[in-house]
């Protein structure tokens, strides 16, 4: 019965969180639990960091494919951790400098790749292969037109049509997805709390 204690913890923690939502008197209990949970989850980051370093050291040692780039990862990691620990994280310190001049632009660049991928995905996927796909294509097309001045040059009602698509069919679709997904989430949570679903704990005992 090695799973009994973890399953009990899951049950109690889950019940406290549900309880504090409905019973104001237990709110502080729920708040403390959330704080504990945050602390426990935060400790895990060391686990990940260790794993990342081990994997790359491993790669270097066994000269795995592309091992020459592994020192870059390790150096980047070490640079952030060491400057952060020993030189402070305030504005103007090396940690902050590296964050704003290197990490921020890299993140923004990866994010902006989406402009290209949106184009290639639209080109390939929006084909009028059947009437349903045609509807998808048409609604995407009209909404895109409605967002730029060109749209109203073609027909001054286009922005209105696009607004209507967003407010009526789009909203209806979103709502159906959300309500359905919520049922899936409630059921999954319920199975976790009552220990019906336990494969995440691993082990076969």
């Amino acid at each position, binding site marked *: 019965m090695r799973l009994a204690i973890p399953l009990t913890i899951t049950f109690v923690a889950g019940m406290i969180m549900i309880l504090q939502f409905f019973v104001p008197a237990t709110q502080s209990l729920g708040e403390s639990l959330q704080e504990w949970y945050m602390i426990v989850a935060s400790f895990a980051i060391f686990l990940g960091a260790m794993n990342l370093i081990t994997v790359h050291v491993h790669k270097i040692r066994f000269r795995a494919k592309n091992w020459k780039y592994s020192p870059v990862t390790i150096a980047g990691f070490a640079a952030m951790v060491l400057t952060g620990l020993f030189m402070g994280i305030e504005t103007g310190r090396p940690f902050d400098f590296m964050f704003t001049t290197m990490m921020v632009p890299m993140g923004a660049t990866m994010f902006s790749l989406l402009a*290209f991928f*949106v*184009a290639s995905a639209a*080109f*390939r996927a929006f*084909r009028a292969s059947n009437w349903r796909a045609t509807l998808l294509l048409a609604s995407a097309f009209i909404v*895109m*037109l409605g967002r*730029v*001045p060109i749209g109203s040059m073609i027909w001054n009602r286009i922005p209105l049509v696009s607004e209507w698509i967003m407010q009526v069919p789009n909203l209806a679709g979103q709502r159906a997805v959300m309500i359905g997904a919520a049922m899936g989430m409630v059921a999954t949570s319920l199975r976790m709390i009552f220990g019906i679903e336990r494969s995440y704990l691993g082990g076969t005992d």
Partner: protein
Amino acid sequence: MAKFIEKLGTVDRRVIFLLMALAVILPLAFRMNLPIPIEEGPSKDLYDAIEALPPGSRVLLSFDYDPSTMPELQPMAVALAQHLMTKDIKIVSMALWPMGVSLGNEALTMVGDSLGREEYVDWVNLGYKTGGGVLIVRMGSNIQTVFPNDYDGNPIADMPVMEGVNKLGDFDMIISLSAGDPGIPAWVMMAGDRFNIPIGGGCTAVSAPQFYPYLGTGQMVGLLGGLKGAADYETMVRLEEDDAAPGTATPGMAAQSVAHLVIMLFIIIGNIAYLSTKQKKGGLR
């Protein structure tokens, strides 16, 4: 020809990437002014309302936003400042949002310097005070009790720009660049409705529809909505003034339009190619 069209349908996606990159880079690099049709509408209404003010009028410009909405609202601040200053209208600015002070200052200093307008004489920034609607009501009876000094701590009493301005009613127009609450609604309800001062404004594209009712009832004289509104305004100001400092909204909007066109063009090409292939194969039904 048919073969060429079919080939287009399976074109390497890097071609698309290249065209997308060009669609964004070229309009920005060459500061492309895609003709933005200036139709009757809230943007034009605001422009016309300011156009109708005589030189020497006084306008209160309130910067009610923060850096997160800067891409949309900052170009408006610049274009408005430019329009007002070229028309020799005195600007008294303030902020209902703490971060709005420095953003407003940036715009006013930049435009003021390029047009040779002087702080304290042609414009002033009063800074930020908490309070929202209540603050506005109190400014209605006396501005100096609310803002004894400007954002830098200089007493506003002897500033030439404040001459004859004691309460909100002394302004000829109030313009709020608003990213949320407090913002346009507070100005409309607490200042516009109460003291009969024309209210103009600018807001993000997302929040624009909620202000349309004010335009319908005349509670607002005009409204700039999102990047499009900013680009409209830049275009209109530019028509008046050739040597004006370049704006960022118009090329941004041009890049948006061109990029959208490229994507839509590709969707059309993809479909033509798809349909012609299907026909040749005898159709899949």
